[in-house]
């Protein structure tokens, strides 16, 4: 029987990897992929708790999180395509019209 804290640690490590990816990379698509990693880590934590508390609410919540992540990925990519059409770049450092 794998202890609960092992699953929570795996979730935490993947979450931190996603956070470092969002803070570090310049390519906008990689930033969106790191956000998907963070959502995945939260899903691991929820399903682990659902297994160890014998309650199905965690898995239902995970299904909703997957659905919302799908919608958010679609809109994020549409925004990136629109930015690419306007400025021919997806480097987030170059989208700085509002910088003072």
């Amino acid at each position, binding site marked *: 029987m794998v202890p609960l804290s092992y699953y929570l640690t*795996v979730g935490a490590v993947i979450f*931190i990897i996603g956070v470092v990816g969002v803070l570090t990379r310049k390519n906008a698509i990689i930033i969106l992929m790191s956000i998907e990693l963070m959502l995945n880590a939260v899903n691991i934590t929820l399903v682990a708790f*659902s297994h160890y508390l014998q309650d199905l609410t965690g898995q239902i919540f995970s299904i909703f999180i997957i659905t919302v992540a799908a919608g958010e990925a679609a809109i994020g990519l549409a925004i990136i395509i629109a930015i690419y059409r306007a400025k021919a770049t997806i480097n987030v450092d170059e989208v700085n019209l509002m910088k003072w």
Partner: protein
Amino acid sequence: MELVFFSIFSSLAIVSAMLVIIKKNVIHSALFLILSFCSVASLYVLLDAELLAAVQILVYAGAIMVLYIFAILLINIERERIIAHVHSQSKLALGVGVLLLIEIVFIISNAVYSKPLGTNATIVQEGAKMGNTELIASVLYTKFLLPFEVVAVLLLAAMIGTIFLAKKDIK
């Protein structure tokens, strides 16, 4: 035996997640993200969540990542334009990340876990002799009907927004 499978799949998930944010080529990052999703789906099977594992592979690895790869295809970046692929503050971000990780692991390993039964009137999984899909369906369409319908409207709004944002202007 379960520990062996857990260590294989969790190390695969963590290593491929690290390679997602390290690789310079965007397509390589997308492929490692697919590998990470599939290993997380295997972790779900270990946790007796079979429907969620199937949904993860179908939706995340099958639909969302295909969307990402099509978007990368449409954007068509040349590799020389991105001079440095990390920020100048990447060391600070890495330091903050490691600090946060140490803090989280410390809290997790010092927590005291009891095991109460489901006090929430949601179905207890062991006693009900149905499969995982039937159990989720019996709860999703009765107790969680309102979030289900709200998520359907949310998907409709996301679809309309995506089509509107990404279409070309017809002059």
